[in-house]
């Protein structure tokens, strides 16, 4: 999506750096990940989202920068003039493999994209920590009719916290509580969502990369075995609930809306919606079949 006229910026200066032996020039302020081609360029990412400032918490996108004592997160480290970057090296591959193993051995990644592929590529074997390895396994939290929270799938990417908080929704209904391995996404004193200030915008669901946060419709269909992504279409349209004109992506299976998202690149929503846009679709399909 493009914007028309915006206020003029100073001419951007560019920096040139070496990535895997090739010189690359990018505008100042570009992250290493973007300099390498962005998400999907071959550097794995987990906590990196389209609409959230990277927290660089997962550390799977690490690259080696000459002169740096430690590896650096490509998702947030900015390119500098003369930087020498290696996106694959023994150290890089080891760190990625270990992050994949650490997460794979403690979190249910069954709905996380690319995991099988990356495990193979980096030789990660989450099983080698044994059956007694601590995990975050826990029952699914189902406390309302709109969405469920399955924190057994949570990698603590912070995206839901940031989407609920200052970056978008400013509701601050959830935050990280506790510390270390016990750190977890929580409402105050872990009260159920209906007792919290949650407004059910679902902007947390939109950014969740692991399926820990999920429409109740999707959860129920998965439980029933009727969730069929291959039989779903997506259509972009405009929400009907006020005059703001939010962009909706309708996910449709068997002529039924099963999920609603919003395009991350929309200048209106930046991927966000309110409860009506996210969950109010039912009225279109609750109509009697004949009149």
């Amino acid at each position, binding site marked *: 999506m493009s914007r028309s006229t915006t206020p003029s910026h100073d001419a951007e200066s560019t920096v040139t750096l070496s990535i895997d032996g090739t010189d690359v020039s990018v505008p100042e302020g570009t992250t290493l990940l973007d300099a390498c081609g962005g998400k999907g360029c071959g550097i794995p990412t987990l906590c990196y989202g389209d609409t959230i400032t990277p927290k660089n918490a997962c550390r799977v996108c690490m690259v080696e920068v000459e002169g740096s004592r430690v590896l650096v997160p490509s998702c947030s480290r900015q390119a500098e003039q003369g930087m020498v970057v290696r996106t694959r090296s023994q150290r890089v591959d080891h760190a990625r493999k270990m992050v994949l193993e650490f997460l794979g051995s403690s979190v249910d990644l069954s709905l996380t994209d690319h995991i099988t592929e990356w495990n193979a590529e980096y030789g990660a074997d989450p099983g080698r920590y044994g059956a007694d390895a601590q995990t975050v396994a826990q029952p699914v939290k189902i406390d309302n009719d709109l969405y469920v929270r399955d924190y057994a799938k949570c990698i603590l990417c912070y995206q839901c916290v940031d989407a609920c908080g200052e970056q978008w929704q400013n509701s601050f209904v959830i935050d990280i509580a506790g510390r270390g391995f016990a750190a977890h996404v929580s409402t105050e004193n872990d009260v159920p969502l209906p007792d919290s200030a949650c407004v059910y915008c679902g902007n947390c669901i939109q950014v969740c990369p692991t399926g820990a946060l999920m429409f109740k419709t999707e959860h129920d269909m998965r439980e029933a075995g009727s969730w069929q992504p291959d039989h779903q279409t997506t259509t972009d349209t405009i929400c009907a609930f*006020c005059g703001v*004109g939010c962009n909706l992506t309708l996910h449709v299976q068997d002529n039924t809306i099963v999920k609603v998202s919003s395009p991350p690149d929309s200048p209106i929503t930046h991927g966000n919606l309110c409860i009506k846009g996210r969950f109010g679709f039912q009225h*279109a399909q609750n*109509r009697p079949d004949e009149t």
Partner: protein
Amino acid sequence: MVGLATVFGAGGGTSSYQEAEAADVIVMWGSNARNAHPIFFHHVLTAVNQGAKLYVVDPRRSETAQFADRWLGLHVGTDIALSNTIAREIIHAGLTNMSFVERATTGYDEYAASVEPWTLERGEQVTGVPADAIRELAHAYARAEAAQLCWTLGITEHHNGVDNVLSLCNLAILTGQVGRYGAGLTPLRGQNNVQGGGDMGALPNKLPGFQDIVDDQARAKFDAEWGVTVPSEDGWHLTQMFEAMERGDLRSVFVIGENPAQSEADVHRAVELLRDLDHLVVLDIYLTKTAELADVVLPGSASWCESDGTVTNSERRVQRVRKALDPPGDARDDIDILLDLARHLGHDWHYDDHEEIWDELRRLSPMHAGMSWARLETLGGIQWPCPSDDQLEPPYLHGRLWADDPDQLGRRAPFTVVVDDPPVEALSDHYPLRLTTGRRLDSYNTGVQSGGYRSPNRLGETLDLSPEDAHRLGVADGEQVRISSARGQVVAPARIDPGLRPGLVFMTFHFPDEVDVNQLTIDATDPKAGTAEFKAAAVRVERLTHVSTPT
């Protein structure tokens, strides 16, 4: 739209959402955007999180007001008193943008004279807002690098709604807070295509593209394209239609996607008039209360997911809606119904597809001329005006007002003398409480669309009142109370809200099947826009068990 068109010649908000992010002062006036326009409010909060100051003017300390740096809780219907006081303070503090006023406005002297009696003291006395708060807002707005002034129905749903809008336009041109990136006036529309409906000529005095129906030249273009003679006189707006029904001048009505049997103020009367019609046809996706009164019901499609077309949002952005679902049963695309209807009436309106209809509009409406579907697709939406196929206009309107060249500057923006005029229905011993209405986050209008999903936060209809009034009336939270106005009465549970002050009560109209709040509201309407004074009725609240006497 009437107010903005009067001042600036275009009936649309002057700014884009992204510009809110560039503002350093944002005033939300009579707008509970946190609930009613949540995603627009995201843009506001982005600015706030970067340090912008947020002022909220609202009788209620609403969800939006909770975010404010300062909330100005004026009495219902004293908006003009407040804006005139702000104007006088700006003038007296020497904060008027004189170079802008001289270059780009007319009528300043009369305006300045008209606000002269509005001292801070008088403003405080009339509005209830402390002088210090009024002064702070006046100075902040005038001194801002770029200020946004946003409003919603709290401004327009009054018997003098147009004057309210004009009074805000006055403030913008007094300070030059319009026509620049980040500075502007943003009315937020209640429906996804209120703006688009107007753009398409669904106004009694306009043809598509806001071309005047009384303009012979404009009409001639349409006559030629359509091969008919377009009527040369303005039609009726909704309120005038009901008046015409009352007179017996309007006997047949075709209602498309509206539910006046529940949404009109003084709804009792509206239902009677609809029932008395000779012929009522309703096209809707539901069998609404209005449809129940109809002679013929045409099952239509949900335009946002069962049909193709465009809508225009509050920042004048035209965007595509697309068909994702087949409508159920015998329901049909609204366009097909209309085309069929035309055929039965002897007109063969032939279009191969939706895009062809759009292209007809582009031929007739210069401000849409550059918006091909292909371009809308690529750009993800285009703001009007867009006369050119290959260029885009700035995201804000009226940059011309800053031009040095008088030709480029064009028609100057007039100040309008506006007079404080309290709500039509005064409070009385019998109806001592001010009822104002509004919306909640998870519901929408009369609930037809929002009733379909189960929101964990849905309260149902309540009578919200201050802790003080609850105490005085002996009403407990959740207790059923009777609310009466001169027009009718309803029963609803009480809900104690410390965001309300004594004397002010609040209801929505989201649950008319359970609690028909519009039996209470008054149908006093603005003569220029036809909008009813939903925001100010006089009511009495009583416990169901004991009837308390008003004090």
